[in-house]
């Protein structure tokens, strides 16, 4: 599942349309859109750190992200010099606290990278000065959610699962950015963004699937063996541990167990005999 968080509906619109996301009417606090087939859940958080953190916390508490899931924050931002483009953020600094966060940049991409400063107020160049919010940072981007989303997200996601994409909309003239302009900005780079959305979860899924496959097949056999050996909780865990190792190491333990069934060593008549047979099983396998 990929969890997309945008501050504004106009930042989300292109994704909702392209991935045919449906609105979830049960979520009355935040606008939430999802698609089971695309495996996407998109949430419009509202503007600012508090709103963003609340939305991430609320949605993650409800759906409990897994290790193969991804958090993607997409939104517009200001650039120190107004350079247009899409940026992957490799450093997020919270202006209010000075705390800095570093999402892993493990996956290759074709975007430029930048550091972003997250502030509580829109950056108004005229009022605040040309450098004010970025003065203490080596970054060029300024937004109002990224650092908060990272902090809230880190309760549920690792740094390798969080991606922050910022599209430059202005250079500190916040009042001039209209919803229509944001939609146009998003549309201009939508193909690249859609590709990323489609491909990111695949990377993280690879490892997760292996483990799942391993156990679904063998679970039934293990259950039967535990019952036939009259296993206590401790012995059951030990048996599971042994079977897990044997499975991973590619040892043909199934035929050894089947042979013991053929020899009449399984099922056991009681727990005591089960312990003896477990020792015999280990002797034959190691």
């Amino acid at each position, binding site marked *: 599942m990929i969890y997309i968080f945008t501050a504004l509906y106009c930042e989300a619109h292109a994704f909702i349309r392209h991935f045919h996301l449906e609105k979830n009417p049960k979520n009355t606090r935040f606008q939430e859109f999802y698609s089971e087939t695309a495996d996407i859940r998109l949430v419009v958080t509202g503007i600012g750190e508090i709103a963003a953190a609340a939305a991430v916390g609320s949605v993650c508490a409800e759906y409990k992200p897994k290790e193969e899931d991804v958090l993607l924050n997409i939104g517009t931002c200001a650039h120190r010099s107004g350079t247009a483009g899409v940026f992957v953020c*490799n450093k997020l600094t919270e202006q209010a606290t000075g705390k800095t966060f*570093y999402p892993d*940049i*493990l996956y290759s991409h074709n975007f430029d990278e930048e550091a972003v400063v997250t502030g509580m107020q829109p950056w108004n160049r005229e009022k605040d000065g040309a450098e004010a919010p970025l003065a203490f940072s*080596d970054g060029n981007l300024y937004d109002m959610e990224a650092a908060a989303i990272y902090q809230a997200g*880190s309760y549920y996601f690792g*740094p390798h699962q969080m991606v922050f994409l910022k599209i430059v909309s202005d250079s500190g003239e916040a009042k001039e950015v209209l919803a229509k302009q944001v939609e146009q900005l998003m549309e201009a780079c939508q193909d690249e963004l859609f590709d990323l959305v489609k491909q990111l979860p695949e990377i*993280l899924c690879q490892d997760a699937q292996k483990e799942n496959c391993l156990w679904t097949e063998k679970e039934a056999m293990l259950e039967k063996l535990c019952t036939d050996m009259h296993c206590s909780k401790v012995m059951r865990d030990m048996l599971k*541990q042994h079977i897990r*190792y044997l499975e991973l190491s590619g040892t043909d333990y199934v035929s050894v167990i089947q042979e013991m069934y053929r020899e009449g060593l399984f099922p056991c008549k009681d727990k005591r005999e089960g312990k003896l047979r477990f020792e015999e099983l280990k002797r034959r396998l190691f």
Partner: protein
Amino acid sequence: MKSLKEDYFNAFFSHIYVEESVRKLPRTQEILSKFPSAKIIEIGHYKDVFCRSKQSFTLQHRSQNLILAAKQGTLIYEGAPVCQSFGNDYFYYTSCMMNCVFDCEYCYLKGMYPSANIVIFVNLEDIFAQVEEMLKSHPMYLCVSYDTDLLALEQIIGYAGKWCAFTEKHENLKIEIRTKCANKQYARDARLLPGVIYAFTLSPQTVIDACEHQTPALKERLSCAAEMVKRGIPVRLCFDPMIYLPGWKQYYEEMLRQVYDTIDLVKIVDVSVGSFRISQDYLKKMRRQEPDTAVVWFPFQNEDGFYHYPNELMEQMESFLTERLEEKISKEKIFRWKE
């Protein structure tokens, strides 16, 4: 857009995190100059990156990044109880680098560190200063390549060479440089220094293929060790950790045959023998990080907080190797790990 499917991960050291306080140091600049296309990210403290919660050691290992930092606080540590002291009274180790470019499935670093990124401490001279201070009161046996493989990054940082030069100036200092590396050029150029022991960790090729990813083949490691032995350089062979695989005896037998064929064992300093053992805390973390890795999911025996192979198997493995080695090397030169 470039398809992520074709090439998911960034190249090694595509991103270099640099502590602000060391950014302008000549050594930092020298290291950075070797990675002209890397993205440099300035950080406050290396732990801000290295110690983040919920990091994936496995995924990070596919795209390892570099962190350049200054080591503070304790610079020299007393040797750990699970490590072999080789009969030395004042046994210490130091970490001028954390983590390793090699990806051994059983490596304790996966349980010890929260991140797979490599930290290079650029203030090596501070470590030298502390060693010099300690040497005033007693001699030292110092392992400088424990939580890393210094020789694997020698072309980038040159720390092994710097340690050798430092040892030359201090008669009462003996260092061990442990490695799985097979840097032939280094082996050919290394100088004979009585205070420097090169310790080659050796495993059967089957174990290397199964568990020691990105490491040089046994043949290559032996070739480097042999080159050094031939030139009279002190060399130690470490058959530690021995790893259990079904059919282990045959694999270790074959490995010994290759060792005997390549190296004149009479000339080596000593050998160490020990089967895999690890603290329970580290193993717990490793199993979480490596759910599909057989070697860490072995049903080990827990004894006083340390996991090891069941006593009978441990005895079989270590005795087998020790007895075979005793046919070629005097007993005094064989150090079998004992708790």
